[in-house]
Structure formats: C-alpha cells, structure tokens
C-alpha cells in the first residue's frame, strides 16, 4: 500500500499531530514500507476465523455502580499545565 503525501497529512490530522510539509514525503515512504510489510498477512486466508481482542477472559467482571473515590479536585488539577479556579483551561472554543 503506497501512501501519498495527502493521505499522510490526513492521517496526521486525524491523529492530531502537526507535520510540516517537508516531513510528509519521508513519512509517506516510511509508512508505506511498514504497511507493505504487514500486508504479508493477506497471503493467509482467515475466512471464518473469529477475531481475538484479548487473552483475558471473554466476559468482563461487573461491579456495583458506586462511587469509590473523589473529593480530590486539587490533586487532579495539580498536574495541569494551565488551570484556573479549579478547572482545566483550554483555548477558547466558542465565539
């Protein structure tokens, strides 16, 4: 699978990673190379084989929907690069 520059730019925007124009071409080559390599899986017919998501037991355990923690707002906010009045802050999103 050969990726072009436009596809790499699209993936990067989905992944929210800023790439300069100069980075697109080398990345397109690198990523295409890796995709070519993983495509060897297509040699093998997996029709009818169920997908495996995890080695853990198939059914997840249930627990009571009860509060087990809390009252630690300042501790949680403590690692935020920007915070004000007990909230995380981000650039304005609503005009």
């Amino acid at each position: 699978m050969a990726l072009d520059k436009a596809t790499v730019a699209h993936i990067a925007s989905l992944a929210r990673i800023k790439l300069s124009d100069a980075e697109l071409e080398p990345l397109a080559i690198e990523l295409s190379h890796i995709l070519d390599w993983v495509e060897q899986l297509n040699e093998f017919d997996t029709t009818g084989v169920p997908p495996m998501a995890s080695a853990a037991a198939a059914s997840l355990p249930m627990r009571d929907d009860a509060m087990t923690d809390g009252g630690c707002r300042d501790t949680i906010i403590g690692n935020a690069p920007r915070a004000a009045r007990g909230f995380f802050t981000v650039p304005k999103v609503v005009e």
Partner: protein
Amino acid sequence: MSDPALLALDLAEARDGLTRRLFSARELAAAYNDAVAEAEPLNAYITPTPERALAMADASDGRLARGEALPLDGIPVAVKDLYCTKGVLTTAGSHILHGFCPPYESTVTEKLWQSGAVMLGKTNLDEFAMGSSNTTSWYGPVENPWRRPADNRPLVPGGSSGGSAAAVAARAALAATGTDTGGSIRQPASFCGIVGLKPTYGRCSRWGVVAYASSLDHPGPMGRTVRDVAITLGAMAGHDPRDSTSAPVPVPNFEAMLGDNIEGLRIGIPREYCVAGMPSEIEALWQQGVEWLRSAGAEPVEISLPMTKYALPAYYIIALAEASSNLARYDGVRFGLRVEGDSLAEMYELTRAAGFGAEVRRRVLIGTYVLSAGYYDAYYLKAQRVRTLIARDFASAFERVDCILTPTAPSAAFAIGEKSGDPIEMYLNDVFTVPANLAGVPAASVPAGLSGDGLPLGLQIIGRAFDEATVLRVAEILERAASFRHLPGFVAGGGS
C-alpha cells in the same frame, strides 16, 4: 560488609543476610544508592530516589528488628519509568509527560512497597516502551554494561526495559520491574545477561502502568537469578479489581515451587523458530539447551507453530492500533507538556508534535491509519483473526508438551547505529518474543551462554497460561546447567 561484597549478593542472599541481621537494610540501601550514582554513565536511571530509599530502608530495619519482616523487606529495587509512583516524576521516557508527578501509585509498585521493598529510582526506557534498543527515550539512550572485548564500542541494552536490565546487570539494583508488550522484558534480559519473566496476561495488574497496547502489555520482574525473579513475581502478582483484565486467580508460592525435578516433562522445540539469518552460535546454544533439559530427564518433542511467521506483522498492527488509541490522552490539557496554539485543535497538534519522538509519531500514525474508515477490516480485524490462530497454535502445542524452548532473540546486543535505521529491521528483533504476547502465555529469558564476541545470549521458556511455576522451574534447570557466572565489563563496586 564492604559495598562490593553487599552488591555481590543476589536477592535471596541479601534477604537471608537481612533476616540474620548480618547487615542492616540501611547499609544495603546506602550501598545501592552509591551503586546507582556510580552507574550514572550508563544512563539507566531517569530519576534516582536515594532519600526515599533510605527512609524505606529505615522502616524495614524497624520491622526486621521487631521480627515482623515482610517478604521483600529491605530489598532495593528499580522501577521502570512506565509505572506511576506517587509524588515521583513519571516520564514514560517521553517529553510529552514533562513534569508529571502522579497523584497515585501503580498497583504493582504498591504491592512491592507493601512487601517491604526499597525504591532506588525510576529507570530509563524506550519512549512509551516503543523500541527494542532503548534508543528512543527523550532522556537519551541507555548503555549496556557489557561490551565486546574486541572493539569496546558502547552497546544497546535492548528494550524497551533497557534501563531496568542495565541496572540489574550492573549491580545498581537487586531486581527491577519491567513491562513486556512484544519482548520488552525478555530481549533486554537476554542482551544484559539477566533473567526476565513476562507473566501470563492478567497475572500482574496493569493499573497505574502507562498504557502502550493494553491487550499486549504485561508488567513483570527482572532479576539476577531465576529464584530472585520468582520471589519478585510473588510480590508483584495478584488480582486487582481496578484492572478489569486482572485475573481473579490465586498466586502460588513461586519460590517454593522451584527445585522440583523436571523428570518426564515434555519440552516443545518449534521448528519454525529456526529463522533465516540467525547466527549459528544461537542455534548451537538452543541445541545445547535441549541437551541440558534432556540430561535433566525432560523429553524434547519437535512441535510446529505454523503461524509464527505472521506473528510479527499481526503484532505490529494490533499494538500500533491500540497505541494510537491509548496515546490520544496526551493533549496538553490535564498533564505534561503543552504548546500553546491559536485554537484548541492547534494546541493539540503542536503539543503532540513537540511531545512525541519520531518512533512514537510513526506508530501513532500507522495505528490511526489501520483503524481509519475503510481500512479497519483489512488491517485490524485481519490481524485479530491471525491472533486467534497464533493462540490456537499454542493451545494445540500445549496439549502435547508442558513448555516450549526457543532462543530469546535472534542476536546478541548490538551497537548504536549498527542497525540500518529501517524500522522493520529493529522490529525483527522481537520475532521470538511477540507470539507469547499475542497468546498471553508466560515466558522467561534466562542467560545461557556467551556469543563468540563475548556477549550474553538468552534462552526462552514459554509455558501454559498461569503456569509460571513450570516456566521458572525449567528456567532454573537451564540456569544451573549453563552456570552463567560471567560479569559485564562494568559493575558497580568493581565486582567481586
């Protein structure tokens, strides 16, 4: 006791010395703090915690004096910097977690401290555990304490738990935690001449361990001997309701189960692990391992794991897909690095561009692509179907054999820059280790000999799910037969 004499003790011996009050936990911690400082040129630690080590050692001394010793009381251990440690910088080897001090402790490290272990510090790793050479860390590469006598070039320690492996090998920790997503405990253990165990998926809680690929990440122990690893695993393992994939199964006394004979045990030798380009000395060591087990009374059985060649590409699709999802949380809002932008989207993009290194970016981009509309079935679902077949390979093998013997890695440690820079060439280092991650079965690496260049080589033992006891038992038989007593060129205290 002198510092070099203290550092020469393995974990079981140190535990014995502490219990018999031959030396104090404080003396041992002080010797290891000095060792951590002496080993600084290896760059194995990102954050040493010497004061915490002494304070924890004092608490151990109190319990030892009162006759209330805990299983690991006074034992100095290193923690891979992927485990969250309350109030101690936790970086995952990434710039994007700049300044992050977790307000909570990971389950596994909490269990270690509750067992009396003493924390020496946080060890270096590939960024977000993505790598096989410990060269992708924001905090710089780790150097292997081993060198080839012939050229004396600095070598990689393997990865991603390279700092933990180098610290244990250089006697700058008695044991360490690692994590293994595709070989990240076993391959560095092989490269550094120590023992590493990837337990069964669900045996050790992932809660508080920075996630790379959640269905493949396995926390586990690294140590100097099989017994040391069995002891450490006992303290790390156990059910944790905070990790929904943690297994509600009892933890056996792994140490007590060592030493049984392996008479009549059936050892699978998978023919597919004879890969093209593998050095003949590794194949010879593997054969030697078979002979050692045969002499101990085990029965080697040739087996087939036909899906082996597809394990690596399936692994990379699954791991990178999960990584792209897990790493979405690094957005500059709640913790770590933030690069301001004119809009929220721009802030995200600039933060993630500045915070992630080249290999992490590459993996997140591939993961995003294989999960994107139109490609999900062709890549991700396909890889998950192959994963089913790999797990079935192991299930049918374990109907015939009790464990499987293979080399750990297709090479010994290499020098930085000795690989071409082609990411796939680096990925191939994990060819023997990734299948056990996909299947979730336990696997250990034990040092079994030296390469012609004078570097350690490991053998891998893979076992049935939740049968770490057999893996460790066979590993100890190999350890005894190999009697690997070689030391790296650099050891703290000068070695003795």
